[in-house]
């Protein structure tokens, strides 16, 4: 007797559950994804044990390396005519390039090279001033933006000076306060520790 062997059906895998799980995984990772918006930061600490007003006397007793920033031609409506002057102590004076950051890569690279050049000198000046103090470990940095020309100094330039101080090894930097147009706000100095 002849028995007919049934033809083996090709077994087809059911892909649906796999696809379901894959989609679930995609959704899970999409939801748990966090974009990084800031890649670096400078940590600092404001003085918490002292009031804003009380700080002034305390820090004045310490050896201080002062960097002053001014905005030249700040009333000129064309920002291309404005630039920032940096004074380290009383002996060094540096001029940052005119104008503003363009926001395009090439223009910014160009501008940054000019900045780097100036800040190399600023760093050398700070180092030299500190050496004259015998590299006193108690020495502190100070960033001053005296009125009226200091009022319009851009944030980026001040942060660059702060970063230079940290680079030299002076992590303790004092900022000068600015009188705010509000009641009970002090205009005294404040100290911050960078780095």
């Amino acid at each position, binding site marked *: 007797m002849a028995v007919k062997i049934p033809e083996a059906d090709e077994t087809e895998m059911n892909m649906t559950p796999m696809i379901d799980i894959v989609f679930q995984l995609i*959704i899970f990772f999409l*939801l748990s994804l*966090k*974009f*990084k*918006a*800031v*890649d*670096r*930061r*400078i*940590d*600092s*600490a*404001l*003085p*918490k*044990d002292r*009031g*804003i007003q009380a700080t002034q006397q305390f820090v004045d007793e310490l050896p201080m390396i002062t960097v002053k*920033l001014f905005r030249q031609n700040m009333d000129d409506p064309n920002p291309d005519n404005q630039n920032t002057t940096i004074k380290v102590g009383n002996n060094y004076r540096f001029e940052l390039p005119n104008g*503003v*950051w363009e*926001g395009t*890569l090439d223009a*910014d*690279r160009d501008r940054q090279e000019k*900045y*780097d050049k100036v800040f190399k000198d600023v760093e050398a000046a700070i180092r030299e001033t500190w050496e004259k103090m015998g590299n006193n470990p108690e020495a502190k940095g100070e960033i001053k*933006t005296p009125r009226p020309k*200091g*009022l*319009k*100094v*851009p*944030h*980026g*330039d*001040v*942060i*660059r000076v*702060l*970063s230079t101080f*940290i*680079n030299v090894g002076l992590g303790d930097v004092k*900022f*000068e*306060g*600015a009188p*705010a*147009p*509000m*009641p*009970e*706000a*002090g205009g005294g100095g*404040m100290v*911050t520790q*960078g*780095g």
Partner: protein
Amino acid sequence: MSFKRPIQDEAKPNLTPMIDMTFLLVVFFMLTIDLTTKEYVALELPYARMGVDDEETPIPRLTVNLLPSGDIKFKGNVWPLATGQPVEQRAALIALRNELQRLTADPEMREPDKSSMIPVMIHGDRDARWQYVQWIMQICAEPTIGVYKIQFAVKKPLGEEDEPQ
């Protein structure tokens, strides 16, 4: 006698309502998703050679954005400082102070000396005026707020992107 067996129909569930519901759920989650990046306004950060990689802080921080014009953007509010009118500037700073007071009010977020554990990041444009940053820091330092941990958002200088710090 032979009976003909009825061919069994494969039961096919109607998938349409399930798909409808799934799409609704997907849309719901897409709309409610909290992207932390919305805390940050797109702006040009200052370049700084020194700085640490921005790791997540153990205590979630507050981010104050300072636009190049000088406007403060904080938690979805925009407060103008750039108008130069002391009345408006005062109103803006008082609004910032109130909001910071509210957000740092939790007594569990206070250290024994009453200062706040919550860090504040100043996410400021490099062209914004330093004066405004000073004002923001002064408000943070007020005894009722007591924030002393300040972080400045910075950017690696061009050409240094890949170097580890």
